[in-house]
């Protein structure tokens, strides 16, 4: 480990060769990482590089398969959240662990409220909370229900809670993703104060420009390995190279020839002036037959909200959606289906599948209505169709009666896609189609996308995986804060160009997210 910094401060935390596998996926494959007292150590990596898995290992949510964790130089076992707490390790997740109905003070001291004779001592609790809130610069009263605070306020309550636990190692998972630039500045001030108090901070961010502003060192993860440790003032280009580290073209076998030939054809999907108050605005785009249009943008830019509205899953306030020239009524999934739209939602288990039902039943979910005669569903016919599509997509299963819950992520995704292929959808909307599935299955899905577009389907694909968007799309729409910030052709699109549009500025250095705070 090469350390350029002159005085090596006390080491708080070290991991050596951490390895963690899930069925079919190697999430972490030898991660070496160390954190010193009084530093901000940035953890950088693409989606799926293993950052979340690593912090889950450190916070006790996962148990590593191999490797060691050392706290203050001593090997430790972090067997659960409680163990992490005892070791002075606190994590602030993207989803806050707060109870909105309870007060700020109650949230900070949840489960360990100061007590007198078994009764919660509210006065002491609120006074203690006040001291902590002052430290993080929150002016709200400790009695305010957390639900009344904005996102930034809730984050500060999480930090105050971590401080109350005498945290020495603070892990922050993309804390700036949901903040406005002003809030980011305030967060940074507090992080610096904690650093000067000797706390070690693991800081995850996707915003490269934040790294020199807040970080001391950077560890880059790629494909579950730590591939480099560099100072925070490393040029962005070098960081990106470390993160990506491979030839994008090889991994994304997009065959583009056909799409160029069809460039003049009529659009299959046309969206114009779509608006939903406070969520997205003025969204217009087209997708032609044979084309893959990617939607890139930061989490929270409104991408999912737009495609859900286009698909009729949620209502919208104004605008038109046309499929092959036919206007959709809006807010009606069935009408979208009959017009030829299909949606593969971002949360496979939560939105795409009936986990306890069979492969056959899941594949028949859309088509069973049309397969009804005289009120009775032709399940035999549906089963045959299901067998046919499962075969075509190469779904690996014990049989059509296997519960989809027990399939691997990639095969589950094939079932969700297969459902819409059976429904004869001509326009497929894929929201994060390869999230959480292994590399082999990813390539199969890319090949399927190629086959579909080659046979005249249109694909609209949201992805937070930049190389994937760049590799698979014929055109890329970049969304930022509920608007389409720009459109790039496959040739123009680079990671930098996409990120510049996504962040909402082309000149780095100026305040990067100036617009009004998004709805709390």
């Amino acid at each position, binding site marked *: 480990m090469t350390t350029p910094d002159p005085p090596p401060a006390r080491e708080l935390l070290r991991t050596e060769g951490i390895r963690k596998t899930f069925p079919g996926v190697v999430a972490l494959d030898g991660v070496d990482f160390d954190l010193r007292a009084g530093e901000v150590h940035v953890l950088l990596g693409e989606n799926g590089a293993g950052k979340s898995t690593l912090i889950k290992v450190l916070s006790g949510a996962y148990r590593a398969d191999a490797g060691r964790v050392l706290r203050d130089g001593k090997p430790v076992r972090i067997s659960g959240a409680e163990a992490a707490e005892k070791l002075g390790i606190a994590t602030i997740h993207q989803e806050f662990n707060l109870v909105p109905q309870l007060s700020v003070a109650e949230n900070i001291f949840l489960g360990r409220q100061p007590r007198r004779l078994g009764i919660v001592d509210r006065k002491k609790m609120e006074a203690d909370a006040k001291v902590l809130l002052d430290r993080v610069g929150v002016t709200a009263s400790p009695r305010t229900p957390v639900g009344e605070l904005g996102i930034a306020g809730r984050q500060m309550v999480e930090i105050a809670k971590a401080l109350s636990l005498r945290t020495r190692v603070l892990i922050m998972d993309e804390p700036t993703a949901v903040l406005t630039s002003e809030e980011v500045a305030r967060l940074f001030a507090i992080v610096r104060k904690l650093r000067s108090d000797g706390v070690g901070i693991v800081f995850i961010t996707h915003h490269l420009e934040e790294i020199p502003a807040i970080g001391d060192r950077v560890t880059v993860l790629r494909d579950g390995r730590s591939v480099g440790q560099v100072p925070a003032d490393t040029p962005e280009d070098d960081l990106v190279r470390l993160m990506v580290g491979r030839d994008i073209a090889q991994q994304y076998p997009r065959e583009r020839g056909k799409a160029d030939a069809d460039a003049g054809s009529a659009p299959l999907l046309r969206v114009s002036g779509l608006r939903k108050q406070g969520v997205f605005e003025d969204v217009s785009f087209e997708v032609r037959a044979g084309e893959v249009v990617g939607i890139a943008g930061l989490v929270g830019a409104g991408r999912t909200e737009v495609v859900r509205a286009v*698909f009729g*899953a949620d209502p919208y306030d104004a605008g038109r959606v046309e499929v092959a020239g036919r206007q959709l009524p809006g807010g009606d*999934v*069935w009408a*979208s*289906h009959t017009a030829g739209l299909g*949606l593969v*939602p971002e949360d496979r288990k*939560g*939105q*795409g*599948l*009936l*986990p*306890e*039902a069979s492969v*056959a*039943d899941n594949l*028949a*979910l*859309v088509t*069973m*209505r049309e397969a*009804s005669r005289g*009120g*009775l*569903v032709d*399940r035999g016919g549906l*089963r045959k169709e*299901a*067998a046919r599509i*499962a*075969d075509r997509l*190469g*779904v*690996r*299963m*014990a*049989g*059509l*009666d*296997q519960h989809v819950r027990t399939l691997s992520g990639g095969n589950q995704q094939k079932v969700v896609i297969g*459902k819409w292929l059976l*429904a004869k959808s001509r326009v497929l909307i894929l929201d994060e189609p390869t999230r959480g599935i292994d590399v082999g299955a990813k390539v199969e899905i890319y090949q399927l996308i190629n086959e579909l577009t080659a046979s005249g389907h249109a694909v609209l694909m949201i992805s937070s995986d930049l190389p994937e968007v760049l590799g698979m799309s014929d055109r890329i729409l970049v969304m930022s804060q509920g608007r389409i910030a720009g459109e790039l052709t496959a040739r123009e699109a680079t990671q930098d160009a996409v990120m510049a549009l996504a962040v909402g500025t082309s000149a780095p250095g100026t305040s990067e997210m100036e617009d009004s705070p998004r709805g709390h």
Partner: protein
Amino acid sequence: MAIDTQPGHRLDKRPGGGGPPQVVRRILLDNGALSALVVLVVILAIMSGDFLTTTNLLNVGVQAAVTAILAFGVTFAIVSGGIDLSVGSVAAFSGVMLGWFTTTQGMPDFLGVVLAILTGTVCGLLNGVLISYGKLPPFIATLAMLSAARGLAQVVSEGNPVLLPDSLSWIGKTIGEWLPVPVIVMLLMGLVAAVVLARTYSGRAMYAIGGNEEAAHLSGIRVRRQKLVIYTLVGTFAAVAGIVLASRLASAQPNAATGYELDAIAAVVIGGASLAGGVGKASGTLIGALILAVLRNGLNLLDVSAFWQQVVIGVVIALAVLLDTLRRRT
């Protein structure tokens, strides 16, 4: 990559290979509730000489009928991830209305029966409207109906039993020596429930909504409309149960079937349905209702006090679901 195995090569339950004993064994292994029922029957047959007599078994069937019919309806609600607490009250209200239409108003029997069924159906529809369009949780909506329908039954009957015309009493009787009408109605309604669940679009939608409501919505299932259908059906089944119950007693009691919703839910759950939704079968529910009836009947034959009977039934419910959860976990 390719799968050349044809559908169901592993989970094939159809007989074919193996002799009948093997088939029976497999069915019992696949179905915990059925095995429990068989074990229960065997034990009771050994412990009491009166148990395995035709009269007694028919008696068990009649005792199970009302609970089973209610439970078939509740199965729809539970499979779709909901619940219906109002079935007992709706059954009583429908029974009282049957008496009111036929005896008080002097309408023909057939019309009275149709209107009584309509009464329960409308109650169910109201539940459905509250749940689908009022966005009330099913627990709350049907809890309100539990109170309201019971109240209406009292209002219409002024708190007194309403006599049914003699011409309707056949519904509660036995045809010939061994054909109790309540059992026939139970089997008929069970068949209807089975077909609805397994074969109709609404039935398949119940599994989809209970399995994952958002996935169902995103697959083009009109969830709200289907919930309306579901709770309306539950109301219809409750009305039929109410008519059978009233006919058996030859009078409609405004406080009949009090607490039956809990027996119905117990029958559904013992039958293998999951309160989380997405899982459940009409055959399972029938077995669940039979287990409850057999247990009560057997405990009576063995002279166990009514108080202890309640304790035993509580234990059985807990055990049934516990075993099922354990079986599923492995």
